[in-house]
Every structure is written in C-alpha cells, then in structure tokens.
C-alpha cells in the first residue's frame, strides 16, 4: 500500500513539476514574442521622423495631420518595453492609433503627386511596408505564444500552478483596432 502511495506521490510531483516548467517556458516565450514586437515597433518609431520630415516639405497645408502623427508616435513610444499584462492593452491601443494616423497620412499623400514620386519618400514607404509586414509577423508570433500559454494555464492542473508560475492573469491577445474592423465606405473613397 505504501509503495502505491509513494509511487502516486512521485508521479504527481513529476507531472506537476513538468506542467509548471511548461507554463514557465510558455510565459517566457510570450515575453520573447513581446520583445520581438517591441523591436519591430522601435524600427517603425525610428522611421516616422524621417517620413514626417520628407512629408513636411510637400505637405505644408497638412501641418495638423503631421503634428497629430508626431504626437501619436510620442504616445506609442512611452509604452516601449512595457511587459505588464495590465498595460498591454493600452500599448496595443496606442500602436493602433499610430497605425491609423499613418494610414491617414499616406491617404492624404495620394493628393500630392510630387510627394508620391519623390525618391526618398518612395524608399521610406517601402521601408515602412517592410516594417509593417514584420510587425504583423511579430504579432502573429505573440498571439501563437499567448494561445499556447493560455492552453497550459487553463487545462487542469494549470489553474493550480498559474499563480505559482507568475501568470495569475493571462496576457491579452493582440486584436485589431475598432478602426480596422470598420467596414470600408467605398462611396466616400470614390467621391
């Protein structure tokens, strides 16, 4: 009888420890993914001043929009290196607003043919597209890591070990902003 109890205790301990180690590994993977997003976002933040400097030469009448984008960048930069799950939603929201602001900037730039055909502007836009692709990839990696961590902490005995492993509150998924979810008004675009 004693042997059975001991065996059960050892097996339980091994299972619990393995589960705990898995949660910690997946938590670290989420942190790694988050750092990956930060690297890409930093690249984007670094691109924006150059983009604004080029645009300012051609878009004197759009000073308000340019200032708005600059302010959104400053706000997004203030969230750099945020790893607290509670602050993550704010960070994602700030980046979403910056994305929307840049989208407006590029849309308005369509009205300035000289800006559109400007060599440095074309290069800057190409670089921006590349960074956007990498940001999307980094977000996909982050979401995959969060999904994997959530599985580990929500399936028994995960809930027992989550707090112990430092994942009391699961990190949020990256979700598209409300602006991105809005239906495109083709009529307005074509008018």
């Amino acid at each position, binding site marked *: 009888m004693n042997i059975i109890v001991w065996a059960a205790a050892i097996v339980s301990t091994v299972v619990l420890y393995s589960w705990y180690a898995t949660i910690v590994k997946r938590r670290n993977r989420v942190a*790694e*993914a988050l750092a*990956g997003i930060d690297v*890409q976002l930093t690249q984007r933040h670094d691109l924006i001043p150059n983009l604004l400097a080029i645009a300012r030469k051609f878009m004197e009448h759009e000073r308000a929009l340019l200032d708005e984008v600059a302010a959104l960048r400053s706000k997004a930069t203030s969230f750099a290196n945020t790893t607290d799950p509670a602050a993550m939603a704010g960070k994602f929201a700030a980046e979403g607003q910056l994305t929307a602001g840049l989208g407006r900037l590029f849309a308005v730039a369509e009205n300035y043919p000289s800006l559109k055909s400007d060599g440095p502007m074309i290069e800057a836009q190409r670089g921006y*597209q*590349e960074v956007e*692709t*990498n940001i*999307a*990839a*980094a977000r*996909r*990696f982050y979401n*995959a890591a969060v999904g*994997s961590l959530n599985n580990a902490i929500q399936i028994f005995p995960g809930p027992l070990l989550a707090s112990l492993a430092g994942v009391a509150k699961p990190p949020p998924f990256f979700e598209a902003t409300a602006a991105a979810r809005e239906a495109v008004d083709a009529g307005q675009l074509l008018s």
Partner: protein
Amino acid sequence: MTTEGGTTSEVTMEGGTTLEGQRRLAQLILAACGIAALAIFVTVLIASMHKTPGIGGLLSGIFVGLFAALFVGGSGAWIAMSLVAVKPAPKVDDQTADELMSELRTVLAELESARLEVVRQVNTRAMTRVPVGAALGFGLWCLEQMGGRPGRDGIGGVVWNAVCLVVVGAMAGYYSAVRDSGAVYARLYLDRVLPLLAGQFGDLSFRSPAQLDLRALNSERLFDDYDSAVSNNEFFGTHRGLPVSIATLLLTLGSGKQRRVSFEGLLVEVTLPRSLKGSTEVIASTGAFEQLRHWLKTSNRQHVALEDPRFAQVYDVWSTDQIAARALLTPALMERLIALRGSAANIDGRPLVVARDNRLTLVIPRSGRDHFRAPGVREAAASRASVIALHVHIAGVLAVADAVIDLDSAARAVAAVDVLAGMPLHA
C-alpha cells in the same frame, strides 16, 4: 521575339479534339481487351475440361485461363493508359519557330558539321566493334553448344539462339561505338543552343555545370543522404525584374547495382526584394517521429507553429527566427504554397521551400524526366522539332520560376513594375 514577363504566352497546346479521340480509342481498346480476356478464359476453361474431365481439368483450366486473361487484359490496360497518359506535345506557333530557326542558323550549321564528324567517328569505330561484338556473340553460342546440353527445340531453336546472340553482340558493339561520342555531342549541342534559347526569354543566360551552393542546402537538411550530385544545366539572370537561378539536380546514393536516385528535380532560387533574416525551411509534413528526427538534426532551429491548420497538415516549418519565418510565411503565401502543391500544371511532387535571408529556394522533385535532351547523333542538328522542344521546355521551367515569384507579394510588386517598364508609352 523576346518575351517580357509572361514566358508561356507563345506556348500553345494541341486542341482538345485529339485528346478526346485518344480517350475514346483508349476506352475502345480497354473494352476490346476485356472482352477478349473473358473469351480466352472461357475458351481455355472449356478446352481444359474437355481434355481432362474432372477437378484436375477444372483447376488447370482456371489457372491457365486466368493467367492468359490477365495477360491480355493487362496488356490492353497498359496500352490504354499510355494513350491517355501521354500528353500532347506542346508546340510553338510557326512564326516563332521560324524566327528561332533563323536566329540559331549559324550555330546549328556549326553543330551539323560537328555531328557529321561524330557520325564519321562512330561509323569508323562501328566498322570494327560491330563485327567484334557479333563474333563474341557467336563465340558464346559456340561455347553453349560445346557444353553438350541436348537441344530440346530442334534445329529451329538452335538457329534462333545463334541469331539472338550474334544480334545482341553486334548491338553491344554499336552501343560502345556511339556511347562516348554521342554524350560529348549532346553536351556540345546543349552548351551551344541553350544559351541562345535562354536569351530569347529576356535577360537570361545558361551555364554548365551549374554553380550551386549545395553545401548550404545540405546544412538545411533538405535532401536525403547522397554520394554524388550532378547539376549540368542552370539558367540564371533576371526574370521579371528579379535575380533568378533555375538548375536541374540529380543526387544519387551508392554505386553500381546499388546506385539509386536520392533526388531528381529542379532548384529554383529567387532573390526577393525583402530584408528577411535567418533561415527558414518549409518541409513536407511527415509526422511526429520525423519532426523529432529533424529537430535532433537541426538543433539551432525552432519549430514554427503556424495558424493555418491546412498548411500545418501538409508542411512543417523550422526556422532560426520565429518572426522572420512568419514575415515570410504570410497567410497569402501559405495559401499559395498549398495551391502550388495541388497545381498539376508544371509541378509534381511536393515543393519544399528554403529561405536563407532574402533568397528563396524552391525544391521541386520531378522524377523520371529528361529535363534537357539533345537530339541523337543520327538526327540532323537543325532539327526543328528538337529546337522547339528545348524552347518549350525552357518556357515550362520559367513558368515554375513565375510561380515562385508569385508566391511573395513584394516580388510580385517588383515583377509588375518590371512589366510596366517594358510597356511602350502611348501619347
């Protein structure tokens, strides 16, 4: 004549009428052979039972009848399958063919001179080797006769054996006379004609042997083990505004009778207009055991779990950089890779992708095909059919490169700009 972007536009296939006719003929042959097989089985069974009444006759009738019926039915099926399976040879329009022949006239004339010289050498060698081969065959027959085995087939069988051995000996002699010179001539033909044909498709050239970095590909563990690698044909240059290289590759393992093909196919490499980093492999999904084996072999790579379950079912992805792998494997690219696998147009087998920084290599297994075949020494060098076949083959290979370029959105954008740049401007 030079094509911009769409390289396959001139290549046309024969109409569906011929295909339909072949299909009907195949059905007819299959049906006729099926009826003949049934008739043979019944006839043999009845004859057997008539000759040997009882269970012995029945069983031998079934056995022999089945054998004969299967032979006839199987032959019919083979003929029908070969009729249906053979795709009509693609051809180019007459004007294009005329232009091709005109541009290659000088080279083909030189090759014709070389061919005639090769034929003269072959004939000279054959003058001695064919009789020697025939004499050796006759000698073997004599040895067989002196062995003292009683001839069961009578004088007819003895003469038949003698003729067979003499003919086989003579053929072996002729083969030895033509083999080396034929291979040299074929290589010369391809080395002279293929660069000119490649030039017809834009800023492309040809080299032999190919300059492949097989060591780098080996480190990606793309291929099974092999002992020798042959890569005699490589097209390289700029296609649709992007640097490309398309090479044939044959990998073999073992030697002599143990020699087997480890890989045969095409390597298509396109330099993408991206700034990707690290190394990403997309390999055929082969189950958990193979995943574990791959992981053990490539310890510096991580398994990349992607969102698309259909993609994950077909492919495994390993990379040194999780983000770079996802930047390459966008949802659109995953869709295209799945579609590429299912597309029977130019690609068979499962494409395997390796991205080393911004160089995307697609490995396409194409077994059992002679990728670039020169005409034989007995065929005129200026053979229109041979030149057109090579032209069409290059177009087919470039269509594979098109598929690789179309995989990536940034590459597609560059290709589109290249096409626009090539368009004439109208006032």
